[in-house]
């Protein structure tokens, strides 16, 4: 547990030293969502309908930008090999890295999403449901990404492959996230998709770090 916290702390220090990545991530999220609403030029009613899908997909894409940062730098400079040689269970390592990555790249999107939802003309409970779906869904996405990132970390051009591996696995999360928000936009209860997202997150926390740990071991040099 203490080692886990040390890894987490270290991850935060590294991420905040490279703070430009965080700004780029948030900037990408804001620019892409507003770009879509400008270019599509939709009617206000349609905009709220489309908003759920657009915000969710762009959130996924901007997190995808940061996913190679999970393991690639540590693999390149050899830190990862040293960590795998130590007594730390690689599953805990993966969990710590996923946690830090989500806090830095996922959480800001969750916090910013009500603002975007309002700009997309959403009202009432939708302004709360969208961040709720993101808060439950994005950690699950990061956990899925740790598996894919661990599998592709050794590759020279692994980013494209990482996206290709994450996308099919991430689809259920995206679908339920968007469905829940759409229900809320239409003024319907969104409990069921939220619960599905929660269930998905629990299963992801319980199983995926171990898969990622095995993947780290498998692809270690």
């Amino acid at each position, binding site marked *: 547990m203490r080692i886990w916290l040390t890894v987490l702390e270290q991850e935060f220090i590294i991420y905040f030293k490279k703070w430009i990545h965080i700004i780029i991530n948030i900037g990408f999220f804001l620019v892409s969502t507003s770009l879509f609403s400008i270019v599509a030029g939709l009617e206000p009613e349609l905009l709220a309908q489309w908003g759920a899908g657009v915000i969710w997909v762009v959130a996924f894409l901007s997190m995808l930008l940061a996913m190679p940062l999970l393991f690639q730098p540590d693999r390149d400079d050899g830190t990862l090999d040293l960590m795998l040689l130590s007594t730390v269970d690689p599953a805990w390592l993966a969990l710590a890295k996923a946690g830090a990555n989500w806090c830095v790249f996922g959480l800001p999107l969750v916090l910013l999403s009500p603002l975007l939802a309002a700009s997309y003309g959403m009202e009432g409970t939708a302004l709360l449901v969208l961040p709720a779906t993101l808060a439950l869904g994005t950690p699950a996405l990061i956990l899925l990404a740790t598996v894919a990132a661990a599998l*592709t970390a*050794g590759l020279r051009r692994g980013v494209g492959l990482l996206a290709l591996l994450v996308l099919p696995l991430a689809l259920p999360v995206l*679908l339920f996230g968007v469905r829940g928000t759409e229900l809320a936009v239409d003024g319907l209860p969104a409990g069921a998709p939220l619960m599905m997202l929660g269930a998905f997150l629990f299963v992801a926390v319980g199983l995926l770090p171990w898969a990622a740990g095995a993947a780290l071991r498998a692809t270690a040099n």
Partner: protein
Amino acid sequence: MRLPNWLHKLASPPHFYRIAGRIEPWMLWSGLAAIAVGAFGGLLLAPPDYQQGDAYRIIYFHVPAAYLAMQLYALMAIGSAIGLVWRMKLAYAISAATAPVGLAFTGLALATGMLWGKPMWGAYWSWGDARLTSVLVMFFLYLGYMLLHASLEERSTADRAAGILAVVGVVNLPIIKFSVEWWSSLHQGPTISRLAAPAITWDMLWPLLVMIVGAVLFSLAVTLTRARAEVLLRERGARWVRDVVAVGA
């Protein structure tokens, strides 16, 4: 847990190569014969459907393809799991050999499904439909397995990495299976069920069953052929391979 002894024996590559080589032609020709009989029965002998007319006949290709798409994924994942747990190299070779066959059958299931969907549902594809989406996800999982396997240079690393992906992707199988029951879907319910009486007349059913058996045999024959080639490639330094190649057996 230890593996049973006969499995250990089968796991020796030269033994597998020999046994598979002996079984494979039988499977291939009986499978092709069954497919011919099933196609004849399904396309010509079976009566037209009272709702769907003759368009339903694509079921004789769609159901076997979809069934195999899932079964081959299960085979690939089980092979990978055996490889990961017991470090059995042959299991990895079988997994790697299965992937392209499974991808092909998934593509066939998607294509026939789309062709069937156009006259019946009025659309080739419906986004947000659970059955269609989950099968598409499986298509991408096969593709991801193959691409990951191809991009990792060292074969043992590629086997293990792609194997983990295959095992993680198994969650998708029950989703595909039950998607029609869990969510309201455009896709019709199951035609054949193990527990209930089939919702289809015998005249229509027997060609379908023959087609499924034929497709299973055919796909296993193709997989075995690929697995034999894979084993030869992987063991190319070994003496028995040199003997096999020299004799030309």
